[in-house]
């Protein structure tokens, strides 16, 4: 078992390296001349030179890459072209809202989607099932920001149950913190809920047809235990896999959700940076989020062993 864990952890290192290489290379892969675009139409030759130097175009690729890696390892993500502040500091200021949003979203998503999927599977092909599945396709299709506006319009503007936008730090109380995060989490999670519910349903359907479920019934085990222990534990692997994929959706969607709900997180930072073409910020955000995603996938891999004893070898 320890071998498996060790192997997985070690296998992650080259992936991170490749991600780093790829993210770094984007600068060189973009069509056209990035330096000119960043400098803008109004730029003077001196500005252009400054930008080229900041981006490292005046040095060989590998040298620059090596430097960049070394700096990252020390937590130095460069300086923002626009604000001249260290990028790391800018990101640090915005971490809490984004992390809160993502955490609440995932918790709500799993808590809603898994039982829904189980219900759909148990009542397969019934009206309830079809209704749930259609809602699923809708949830997956309606873009996050549309859902966001819909929820905000209905629950905040019209019904006044929740604040329309903004963020309250956790330090000011759990209640207000949650109140600000509820609508954005539902919006951000809509696609995830649909995806996870669908996968739960199909995994459960396959499991419920297995012989060992018949054995459990022949033993007189209660329906709840059969569903949520005997069946779900077997369905867990594909469900965990799709939860991992959802996190990627989450990261991308956070950018939009923070914009709709005016949450001062990393997503907003990214949007501002895009408009100002502040590439060092973008580069840092992309790299960091990618690493987060890789680590999430690693965690999922390790969680597999908790769920299925056959995976330990």
């Amino acid at each position, binding site marked *: 078992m320890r071998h498996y864990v060790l192997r997985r952890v070690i296998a992650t290192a080259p992936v991170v390296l490749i991600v780093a290489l790829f993210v770094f290379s984007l600068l060189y892969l973009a069509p056209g001349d990035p330096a000119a675009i960043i400098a803008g139409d109004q730029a003077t030759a001196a500005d252009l030179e400054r930008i080229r130097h900041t981006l490292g175009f005046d040095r060989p690729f590998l040298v620059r890459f090596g430097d960049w890696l070394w700096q990252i390892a020390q937590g130095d993500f460069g300086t923002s072209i626009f604000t001249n502040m260290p990028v790391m500091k800018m990101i640090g200021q915005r971490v809490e809202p984004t992390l809160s949003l993502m955490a609440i979203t995932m918790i709500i998503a799993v808590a809603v989607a898994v039982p829904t999927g189980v219900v759909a599977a148990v009542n397969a092909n019934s009206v309830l099932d079809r209704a749930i599945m259609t809602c699923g396709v809708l949830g997956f299709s309606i873009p996050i920001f549309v859902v966001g506006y819909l929820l905000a319009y209905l629950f905040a503007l019209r019904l006044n149950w929740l604040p329309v936008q903004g963020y309250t730090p956790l330090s000011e109380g759990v209640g207000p913190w949650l109140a600000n995060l509820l609508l954005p989490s539902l919006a951000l999670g809509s696609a995830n809920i649909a995806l996870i519910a669908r996968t739960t349903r199909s995994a459960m359907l396959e499991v419920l047809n297995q012989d060992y479920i018949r054995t459990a019934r022949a033993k007189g*085990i209660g329906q709840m235990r059969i569903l949520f222990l005997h069946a779900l534990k077997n369905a867990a692997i594909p469900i965990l896999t799709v939860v991992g994929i959802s996190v990627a959706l989450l990261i991308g969607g956070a950018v939009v959700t923070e914009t709709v709900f005016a949450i001062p997180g990393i997503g907003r930072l990214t949007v501002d940076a895009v408009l100002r073409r502040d590439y060092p910020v973008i580069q840092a955000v992309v790299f960091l989020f990618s690493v987060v995603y890789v680590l999430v996938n690693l965690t999922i891999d390790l969680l597999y062993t908790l769920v299925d004893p056959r995976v330990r070898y």
Partner: protein
Amino acid sequence: MAILEVEGLKVHFRTGAEAVRAVDDVSFSLVRGETLAIVGESGSGKSVTANAVMRLLPRAQTRVAGAIRFDGRDLMALPERSMAQLRGDRIGMVFQEPMTSLNPVLSIGTQITETLRRHKGLTMRAALDRAVEMLAAVGISEPGRRIAEYPHQLSGGMRQRVMIAIAICCDPDILIADEPTTALDVTIQAQILDLLAELKRRTGTSIIFITHDLGVVAEIADRILVMYAGRKIEESATSDLFEQPMHPYTRGLLASMPRLRGGSDAGPARLHEIPGLIPLQSFGAAGCNFAERCVRAEAVCRENSPPPLLVRPGHMSACHFSDIGTASS
């Protein structure tokens, strides 16, 4: 005293526009302590009968009629909750496929103890101890270690022993074994049969043993019930059946058993067979449902369903020519 009485059991499966009478008016009873074997080829309805007794048949597109009395109570009238309480506690069941009948992600210990805790209300500690006892009783070595292991770490024979342990851990009145040895190789088969005989001797559990293999039941069954295309066509004590089979189908089955010494000086005998498979139209046929494949069939067979004739005390056969039968080899 009968622990189980099945009266007029009918199971109809609806496929498309038609309904197949998988079990067609079957009746039998099981006395305490006896082992009844239900024998028939694939598709004869024997497994369906067993599943009907346990009320484990799928609910969709299935109709079940008739009475099933367990210890005086009509199982058909019980609400599902009460039935679930009986299952695993008073009636245990062992299935055919040991490789897939155990839950791969739960430990052996969990799968045994959960039955004990559900039906007997034992504490975890007490349940674990009893589970270890049960594993030892079914002949598994190092039971204390096996408790923590998972199904994929056990061989097919061992998994079947675990299944048996689970089925009997609550001391059920009836054990239903649905082809428990079919998926195992011959040496393991013999071991499992010995195990069942031993358990029966020790605890006096009544057993319903379902199989297509007459050789297997010769050893452990007190009575044999032969099924064909959903109907009961012969029933008698074991020795009686082997010595004087009445129904042409039963005779065919006995003749088909491979013998070590067959034939004459002219050379080894060709293996006897009953030609063909059970044709679909045999189910629910107007006349005798074996008429299609019977070597002795006459016009009366196709028109009239043969009544169950009591040929001898304790020996019934559903054939128009039962009393004319002579023992043939």
